[in-house]
């Protein structure tokens, strides 16, 4: 049992990706066991988003491999669609379906892919919407919701597929500062419930609170993998320290009211 639990749910080995001549990912090795939460951070253009987009093959990669529970994930494999069903993803720009109501956004995947009946799918969707505290908005369309509400619907939509792994690609970067917290709260409660998560984020408070490991990236390569305590105590490479102080300064600048 112990051995089974420690077998990684996701293994990334020797991953390399080029956008044309640009070497976007260099020899990435990363593995995650079930229940683990990883925060990926680093300066923009460092390849953080590209990693999570390779995990469900939204991006093609050239060498190396990504395996979910031992199954190879790439853009050409037959099992790609079934792998994607097991990996939830939350985007920076929410990407809710604007022509569908909130509840239909959440139930579409379960109804069409998991072949769950409308009634049961809606019942489960309402539970999920209650979990992200949006049960009263179920019949609205996305354009009537605030950014924070839309992102919480997007989280519910991803959870509706009962994923084994959740990917967050800068989920709060497109939000107004006052809405960041409501999304982070939902993510934190998800983390406490034991969801396996990879989060690309600059929210260092969130990273400190939930991350089991922090992956610091720059120039397409993993520069540092550290425990949060070590990472925030300056026990890491110089570039990471520079990045942390830069992010902290920005936080302070954007929230002049807080000391």
């Amino acid at each position: 049992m112990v051995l089974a639990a420690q077998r990684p749910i996701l293994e990334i080995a020797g991953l390399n990706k080029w956008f044309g001549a640009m070497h976007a990912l260099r020899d990435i090795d990363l593995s995650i066991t079930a229940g683990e939460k990883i925060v990926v951070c680093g300066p923009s253009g460092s390849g953080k988003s590209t990693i999570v987009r390779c995990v469900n093959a939204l991006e093609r990669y050239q060498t190396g491999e990504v395996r979910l529970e031992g199954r190879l994930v790439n853009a050409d494999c037959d099992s790609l669609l079934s792998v994607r069903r097991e990996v939830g993803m939350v985007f920076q720009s929410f990407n809710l379906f604007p022509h569908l109501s909130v509840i239909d956004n959440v139930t579409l995947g379960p109804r069409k892919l998991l072949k769950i009946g409308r009634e049961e799918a809606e019942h489960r969707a309402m539970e999920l919407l209650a979990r992200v505290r949006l049960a009263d908005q179920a019949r609205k369309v996305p354009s009537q919701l605030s950014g924070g509400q839309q992102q919480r619907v997007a989280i519910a939509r991803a959870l509706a597929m009962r994923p084994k792994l959740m990917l967050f690609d800068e989920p709060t970067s497109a939000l107004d500062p006052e809405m960041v917290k409501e999304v982070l709260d939902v993510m934190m409660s998800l983390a406490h419930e034991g969801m396996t998560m990879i989060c690309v984020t600059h929210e260092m408070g969130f990273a400190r609170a939930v991350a089991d490991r922090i992956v610091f990236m720059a120039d397409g390569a993993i520069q540092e993998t550290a425990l949060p305590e070590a990472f925030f105590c300056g026990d890491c490479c110089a570039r990471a320290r520079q990045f942390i102080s830069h992010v902290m300064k920005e936080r302070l600048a954007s929230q002049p009211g807080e000391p």
Partner: protein
Amino acid sequence: MSTIANSNPTDGGPSRYHARSLVIWARTNLFARPIDVILTSGIALAAVALIWAVLPWAILDATWQGSSRADCRPDAACWAFIINRSGQFIYGFYPATERWRVDLVFLAFAAALLVLLNRRLAGKQVAAAFLILVFPFLSFVLLHGGIGGLPRVTTEKWGGLSLTILLGVAGIVVSFPIAIVLALGRQSEMPVLRWASVGYIEICRGLPLIAVLFMARILLPYAFPPGTEFDPLALAVVGIILFESAYLAEVFRGGLQAIPKGQAEAASAIGFGYWRTAIYITLPQMLRMVVPGIVNNAIALLKNTTLVVILGLFEVLNIVAAGAADPDWLGLHAEGYIFVGLVFWTLCFGMSRYSQRLERDMRSAERA
């Protein structure tokens, strides 16, 4: 100040208030400056003069009843011609006892359209499936007959306004699925599919419809053994569909390109493959976006159907023109063309107004 006082609804009765606000509106919009006064009165005078000149001919002295040109006043319109021949103008040479079949087809079409376009009625998917999959065959069987005791009515007897609408509807309804496939094909990652779609669209879009119809009539027989006969109506419908599907495909492609990339990515991330993404995510959003383009194409197509005269078909314009060459009604071209103009204008204006309402409804649906 006076505006504020006058816009008070308690000032006088409601009708008085209405009349007053009309005066205020005219004062601020039509007679505000001297140049406005000159323009307004000039245009009003011109309009009155035009009506004064046309009214006696068109209405006051016009003849509404009669059995030949001799019954009409020579110096005024002879609407008796239109009224006398209205059956032919609507149904062509379709036998009078079988005209109920034409009525039935249009009733079925109108009912399906009503369900499809009225937001309050349920069953949109059934209506769309009926319209695209069942209706073309059903209407052909019903109009052509020869099965189940229905007398056969060959296509050269079809004509008039019903033929015009038939060509327009067939052109849009049959082109619709073809155009969706072409638009998706044009964006496909498979090169052969993409090239085939691009080639088809660019060739058919680069030809005028009149050239397509000429080729169908003159070139097609050379490609087949001598003596092969083609039904002119079938040639017209095929020509129109070739032409229209290329145009609609470009309208649809424009809509598909306007959908943010994140939509397809979000669908992929849930686990939707190519077809599910198209059916549930991209196509519904695209179709909402391109309603004005579809209506624009439908209006253009309806007017283009007059070109089937090249194949010897008598749609509404040609049958009216032919009617004016009838010895009984010789020379009544003006009345005929005014009638046809009004018919086309009414149909096109109706479509245009409907599309405006549809757009407004959809905008408020995405907001409300």
